């Protein structure tokens, strides 16, 4: 019975890898070969698709744009969430419970509801088609998430640490930056990871708020699908490349994944 | 009930141990008599929990064997050894009632319904849980939950030995002594072999008939509480047991005479020779040191009040010697002389007592 047990995770992982393998398979074929026949791996491996993406500005700027607003968003979300999480963790103040729930409710906001209003709002303040716009828009659900995660980690740090520092004469901000933040470094890592994740994968708002300058890779991909017919090989390569940042990030936080989820705060 | 014997036991957590330090339990032999109350005492990391898990079957030893009476149980899993174990924090099945918790081990073994009922009520009575049987187990306080843990071990009539792994750790101090006395009462009533692991010497010395002191994977001394107190075989036992611990002073050994700072001392056990090159120490407990008209000259440094007696810290040269003085006894003014009670003064070489059993 014990041997058979890990058949389940093994089968599931196989299931997970199958579409990814197929994507990679396609990315190394020419569109002609794809449409012409069905083969398990490329009869003739071509790097043409990848070459196009890495040299054509329309393509690679898509990646750069996406990375730009994701990083911006992560920095903004985590930095603003830190003092707020500290407040929720250490203080009681008027309306704190309701405020916390209101924040969390934004995590439940369907992007579809906000697509059009955001389009109008950000156009009205002249931020349409900028990286900042997408970064700010994603704050809607990433900030509550970051506050939630950080508050969980902060509550695990005993208040005595704060009190000792204050008694020793540390002004609040010095204490916060020099002492407190290093203590919750793991929590910051987890929060940053989830902000990165949700911002990187979300595309409805990213597409709605951009046109040419800040166009994310997703928009480039869908535009290609509709206008120039079905450039399957190219699309596959573009898709394959989007998996790389994710794989990197997972690898770096692999030791913290279980810890972050352990708080049950996703 | 059973007599537990450990033969040639050694355990390492490493698959291929090389150095002596790789062994969590160093080679030893031991027997726990049937129906005895034993304590395994030692600081964290000394191997006592490892030893407990070897006896209970949660761990298979790298070398050696475990015997219950005349059966070799080394390869048997825990549920085949008929043991009970109480852990550091209460382990109860939260979703079940107190009654169902206690009935669980019996039901798993297919015991008939009315027999289960009889045993559960009997044990609940013994543990003062009788009126809580219908309550949900998760609602009890920590000491109540530990009683349930204990109860689950006692319901089975065929229990060979009950093992306790620092069971009072999470209990409130004022309830600790109550649970301790309950354990002692149960032992007297049921006569089951018990093995109790702790790092608290008070718990060990009050609970057990026989205490095994461990340090660094080694059994340092096994004996009655009185033995450990009056005749420590190792300096570790000397300073770990007793509060304050034993005085340890550097010594020399020459022509059959032990000396401290030039003063010859008579010993409780007379060694003929000592190992060459070993570090020699004289050990004597503060209880067996007294002021006298002559002896080792000291100056009085500090006096601490400990209730019925006082702990006086004195100094000879760069060494401090502690002794206990009754609360009403007068103290010499500034300087005085100390005498050591020879029957309880020992010579230690590299920590081990020299000279065989004291006469």
């Amino acid at each position, binding site marked *: 019975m014990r041997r058979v047990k890990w058949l389940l995770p093994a089968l599931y992982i196989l*299931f997970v890898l199958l579409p990814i393998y197929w994507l990679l398979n396609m990315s190394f074929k020419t569109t002609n070969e794809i449409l012409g026949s069905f083969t398990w791996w490329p009869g003739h491996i071509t790097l043409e698709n990848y070459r196009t993406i890495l040299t054509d500005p329309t393509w690679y700027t898509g990646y750069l744009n996406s990375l730009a607003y994701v990083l911006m968003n992560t920095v903004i979300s985590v930095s603003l969430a830190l003092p707020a999480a500290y407040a929720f963790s250490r203080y009681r103040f008027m309306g704190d419970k309701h405020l916390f729930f209101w924040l969390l409710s934004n995590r439940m906001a369907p992007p*579809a509801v906000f697509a059009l209003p955001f389009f109008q709002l950000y156009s009205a303040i002249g931020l349409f088609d900028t990286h900042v716009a997408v970064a700010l828009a994603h704050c809607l659900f990433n900030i509550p998430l970051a506050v939630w995660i950080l508050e969980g980690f902060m509550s695990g740090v005993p208040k005595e640490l704060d009190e000792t520092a204050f008694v020793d004469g540390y002004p609040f901000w010095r204490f916060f930056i020099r002492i407190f933040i290093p203590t919750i470094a793991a929590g910051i890592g987890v929060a940053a990871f989830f902000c990165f994740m949700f911002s990187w994968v979300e595309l409805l708002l990213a597409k709605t708020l951009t046109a040419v300058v800040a166009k994310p890779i997703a928009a480039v991909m869908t535009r290609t699908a509709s206008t120039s017919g079905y450039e399957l090989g190219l699309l596959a390569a573009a898709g394959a490349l989007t998996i790389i940042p994710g794989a990197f990030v997972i690898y770096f936080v692999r030791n913290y994944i279980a810890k972050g989820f352990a708080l049950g705060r*996703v | 009930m059973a007599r537990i014997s450990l033969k040639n036991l050694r355990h390492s957590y490493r698959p291929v141990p090389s150095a002596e330090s790789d062994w969590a339990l160093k080679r030893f032999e031991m027997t726990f008599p049937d129906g005895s109350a034993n304590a395994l005492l030692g600081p964290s990391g000394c191997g006592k929990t490892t030893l407990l898990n070897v006896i209970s079957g949660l761990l298979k030893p790298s070398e050696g064997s475990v015997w219950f009476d005349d059966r070799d149980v080394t390869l048997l899993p825990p549920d085949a050894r008929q043991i009970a174990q109480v852990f550091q924090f209460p382990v109860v099945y939260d979703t079940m009632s107190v009654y169902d918790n206690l009935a669980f081990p019996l039901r798993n073994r297919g015991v008939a319904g009315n027999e289960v009922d009889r045993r559960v009520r009997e044990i609940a009575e013994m543990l003062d849980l009788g009126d809580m049987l219908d309550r949900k187990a998760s609602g009890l306080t920590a000491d109540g939950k530990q009683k349930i843990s204990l109860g689950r071990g006692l319901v089975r009539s065929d229990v060979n030995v009950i093992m306790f792994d620092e069971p009072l750790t999470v209990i409130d101090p004022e309830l600790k002594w109550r649970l301790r006395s309950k354990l002692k009462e149960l032992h007297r009533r049921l006569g089951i072999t018990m093995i109790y692991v702790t790092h608290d010497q008070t718990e060990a010395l009050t609970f057990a008939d026989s205490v095994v002191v461990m340090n660094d994977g080694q059994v340092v001394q096994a004996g009655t509480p009185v033995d450990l107190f009056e005749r420590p075989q190792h300096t570790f036992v000397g300073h770990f047991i007793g509060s304050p611990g034993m005085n340890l002073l550097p010594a020399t050994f020459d022509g059959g005479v032990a000396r401290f700072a030039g003063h010859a001392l008579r010993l409780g056990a007379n060694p003929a020779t000592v190992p060459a090159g070993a570090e020699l120490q004289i050990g004597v407990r503060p209880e067996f040191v007294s002021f006298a008209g002559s002896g080792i000259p000291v100056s009085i440094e500090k006096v601490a009040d400990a209730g019925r007696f006082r702990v006086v810290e004195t100094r000879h040269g760069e060494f401090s010697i502690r002794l206990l003085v009754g609360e009403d006894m007068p103290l010499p003014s500034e300087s005085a002389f100390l005498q050591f009670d020879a029957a309880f003064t020992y010579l230690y070489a590299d920590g081990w007592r020299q000279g065989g059993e004291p006469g």
Partner: protein
Amino acid sequence: MSGRTPNQKAWWLVMPVVLLVAFNAVIPLMTVVNYSVQETFGDNQFFFEGVTWFEQILHSSRFHDALERQLLFTAIVLAIEVPLGVAIALAMPRSGAWSSVCLVLMAMPLLIPWNVVGAMWNIFALPDIGLLGHSLNALGFDYNFTRQPLAAWSTLVAMDVWHWTSLVVLLAYAGLSAIPTAFYQAAKIDGASAWAVFCYIQLPKMKRVLMIAVLLRFMDSFMIYTEAIVLTGGGPGNSTSLLSIDLVKIALGQFDLGPAAAMSLIYFLIILLLSWVFYAVMTRDEAQS
């Protein structure tokens, strides 16, 4: 959240967060509410319409169909992902190098942009040239998800299971890791069977984590948009037009601001209500234990 000192100045610390989130949440919502009670005639002329749009939506069969499809989808997806995720977590080794490798591999679908997920499955399921499509047809099934509603639904569900089960696995795994070994040891000594260990130890101790998993999956599947639309475009016909897809069609496609806004609000309210219910149940449970 205990042991906190009362201090109204804490508001300064939360102010930046409140301002930014409110900017993103309140203003657009006000806009939506605005539209939902007005009629527009192109040229920025607005006429107050009261609850007309709400009535229209609540009575429209299109909305009802979309809502039904959405509820069906969410139910199916939850029924598969939660038990499967828990089963996988239970089957995984509790520690060691293998478990790390497993977790990393399983986490990959979670970090793929949602449009790529849709595109990946689109390519995967194409009847002639996709691995799945080709294989199914070769095995004798008549499978074409672009033409057959049932095939489209199955593929959509399979994609969601592929995409999100890992989340449940990670959560359940973390919950399981938090159980001290002493419980398993005690169960061994008590002679408990593997099923009893699951019922009386593992499941109760995973309760909180499982509730979070169910809550998250419920919410997110209720809001699904990008990967679904890239996979099926809402079709064939309307068969896979779930709520978000339908809403975006009306809002951005037809620019019917009034009905779109009314539908948005109803949609949002449904989600808020459900999340509030879950949240209340969760915190009440926490307070009890």
